[in-house]
């Protein structure tokens, strides 16, 4: 801790000369050093811990009974302590049981009363909720690499949902043609919608944050209208539900042979494939090189002869296509019986947090989509005992710390790592 000032010294390049002067770095020493350093791994870990701590405090403050025990804290502090502890343990256990493993089911499985499939149910839910997040996270992350802050994943996902739905119920084709076509339709619809902020930015300089937020609202209202039209509206139900997708366009489930309640479907595989593809696109293709060049320094990229405007447009279109595929995953997967205004949940907005936590890397995005999918599955299964919005709250708190590593560093008195703090940048007006 004491030598944190030396680590912060700006003249760093010849620093290795100072290192060997210390006695031989053994493993424990290096490990301890690593733990107290604000590198991306440790910042991520500390962000998670801090966020769960803040979540715990809010749970205590907002719970009426626990709050009441604090009114006589000085008379009987143990009451407040036990009430708080029980509340936190119960809430976070409920989240864990809804997301990963339910201990009751485990007991009955060990007693031979439950099938193995039942045991996998929370995990299947986590994967189900993580799937759209992979797509929207990639959509936000890809745009980030070009220096674009794509907040429009929600609208792009909604349009992808509608595109996939329309192809899914209106065409009569064999499954090997119908399903891919419906998925692609989702991607195309999302891509076209996503290209709008790109075009606007390229041609007029309109900031993508504002235009994509406006398009989110427009898309949500458009969905309400579209669901009411005779073309989309269900012929059987009277409430605002769309027609179901044909059997030939439904994404097959992966594990329902074990237990029919396991909803995780092929979309997960497509999502991971999309992540691999995005990784390839970003790090191996010319297009990805252009994206990164524009993201690092658009003036340099322009000097090198790259067209900035068309890069914005194509990047946003690609990002929109990814989010649109996420919409297709919903419309042809868990909501193949008909989409509602509620189907999209907040997947698009959570995509922002997923991309930030994943630091706009496809691998990181998949990992953080799994984490936030688990949070969502846990929160949905734990409600109403635990408020469902705890997942949004925890997500936002986690990424707040991720986006502000300097804050984590200051709170926990960490060292500055060799390469400086890793942050994500988005341009202003």
């Amino acid at each position: 801790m004491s030598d944190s000032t030396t680590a912060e010294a700006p003249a760093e390049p010849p620093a290795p000369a100072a290192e060997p002067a210390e006695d031989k770095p053994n493993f424990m020493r290096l490990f301890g050093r690593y733990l107290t350093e604000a590198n991306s791994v440790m910042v991520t870990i500390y962000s998670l811990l801090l966020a769960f701590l803040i979540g715990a405090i809010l749970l205590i403050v907002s719970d009426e009974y626990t709050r009441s025990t604090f009114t006589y804290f000085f008379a009987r502090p143990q009451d407040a302590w036990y009430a708080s502890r029980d509340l936190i343990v119960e809430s976070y256990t409920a989240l864990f049981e809804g997301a990963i493993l339910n201990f009751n089911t485990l007991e009955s499985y060990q007693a031979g009363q439950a099938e193995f499939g039942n045991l996998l149910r929370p995990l299947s839910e986590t994967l189900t909720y993580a799937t759209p997040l992979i797509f929207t996270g990639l959509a936000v992350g890809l745009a980030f690499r070009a220096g674009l802050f794509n907040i429009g994943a929600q609208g792009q996902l909604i349009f992808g949902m509608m595109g996939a739905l329309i192809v899914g119920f209106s065409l009569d084709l064999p499954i090997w043609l119908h399903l891919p076509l419906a998925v692609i339709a989702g991607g195309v619809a999302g891509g076209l919608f996503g290209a709008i902020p790109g075009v606007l930015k390229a041609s007029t300089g309109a900031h993508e944050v504002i235009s994509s937020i406006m398009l989110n609202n427009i898309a949500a209202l458009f969905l309400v209208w579209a669901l009411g039209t005779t073309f989309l509206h269900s012929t059987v139900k009277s409430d605002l539900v769309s027609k179901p997708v044909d059997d030939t366009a439904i994404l097959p489930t992966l594990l329902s042979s074990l237990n029919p309640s396991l909803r995780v479907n092929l979309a997960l595989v497509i999502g991971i494939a999309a992540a691999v593809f995005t990784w390839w696109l970003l790090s191996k293709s010319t297009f990805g090189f252009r994206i990164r060049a524009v993201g690092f320094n658009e003036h340099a990229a322009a000097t090198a002869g790259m067209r900035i405007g068309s890069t914005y447009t194509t990047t946003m279109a690609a990002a929109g296509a990814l989010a649109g595929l996420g919409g297709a995953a919903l419309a042809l997967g868990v909501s193949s019986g008909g989409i509602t205004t509620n189907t999209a949940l907040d997947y698009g907005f959570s995509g922002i947090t997923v991309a930030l936590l994943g630091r706009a890397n496809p691998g990181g995005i998949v990992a953080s989509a799994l984490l936030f999918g688990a949070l969502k599955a846990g929160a949905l299964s734990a409600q109403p005992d635990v408020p469902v919005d705890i997942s949004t709250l925890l997500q936002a708190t986690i990424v707040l710390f991720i986006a502000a590593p300097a804050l984590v560093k200051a709170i926990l008195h960490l060292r500055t790592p060799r390469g400086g703090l890793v942050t994500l940048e988005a341009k202003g007006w």
Partner: protein
Amino acid sequence: MAVDTAPAPALVDDRAPARHLKAGITYLVLGALLVVVALTWLGGHSTTVAFDKTLTDVRWDVPTFGVVLALGIACAAAGAWMCVGLPQRRFKSASAAAVAAFVLALLFWAYSQEGTVFRAESILAGALFLSMPYIFGALSGVVCERSGVINIGIEGQFLMGAFTGVLVANITGSIYAGLAGAMIAGSLSTMLLALLATKYQVNQVVVGVILNLLALGFTSFMYDQLKKADGLNDAFSVPVISWGPLADIPVLGPVLFQQKLFVYVGLVMVLVVWFLLYRTRWGLRTRAVGEHPAAADSMGVNVNRLRYWNVVAAGLLAGFGGAWFTLGNSLAFNKNMTAGLGFVALAVMIVGRWNPLGVLAGALIFGFTTQIARDLSAAGSSVPGEFLQMLPYAVTLVVVAGLIGKAKAPAADGVPYNPGDK
């Protein structure tokens, strides 16, 4: 960037007639469309204008055909003038006239339907009231951005204000305590932005978006938790303040002298912020810090401290605007009840070119649009209600696309200032 291959534009004398083909053709086409609409559909239709609050027995029936035709011709004429060439200084007023004619014609057309009445007084009063969140949000944005901090988190500050306003009003039983609570809540949430933007030099756009999510998560979470307890989220309403005889003046009375507290505070704040920014030492320093922080620093201004306190103060405004959603509308808090209006406020700030008076004009346009959309969908327009609700968002999109390139943000907007760098 000298990569453009297009030939450099010829130098133009400012007083000589100049052609504006793009704009001219646009207005010409719009005007022609109006004429076509008038000739094909509007024969025999009439638009009723009523003064519903003061002169309840006055109703004007205006023949829609003639009005739309005249306005269409006016719009097209302005367009034609631009095509032929007009003095540079006339361009602004000509295009304002063309846009006004077009919008007015659309209004007459929209209200020509059977059963719709243009209730002038309610609509104008409602428009002024609906422009309030935009005014507060955009003013908050102006104060932040003039000092060089981008505040994308207005939406989140609205939510915090809306939530806290109702909560405090319920706990204390006083609306005014609720308003104060809302302001403090707004200010606390900008404090986080201020801290991260100045001390920790974090990217402000990213943090702003995260703060929005945080506010959404926090207020929704607390809403669910407090729902269990009784009497913490009941609706409170701010009284309508009526200025005695002044309130009976036709049109002006209901619009200006029979409104809720928010309207008066909003209008006064526009003037106050304008005065502070352009007529005081604080304003000069704030603008300097937003344009050229290094220069301000060298003149002895503590850049980051000024930015910090300006952003915190701006939070008071945004929090007050947040209270409009609940206390102003006599509503209980609901999840995500601000519905993206914080971002619309940001667009208003851009339309107003980071100037409080411009903000007032922009906010009035948006408030009017929202009010017309609501009124028409309540009157049963043939246009689906969802499309009418899209109107403010669509207008924002158009306005941002049309203006942002031309409106100049403060030069150091969004750039963290580190005294050691220079």
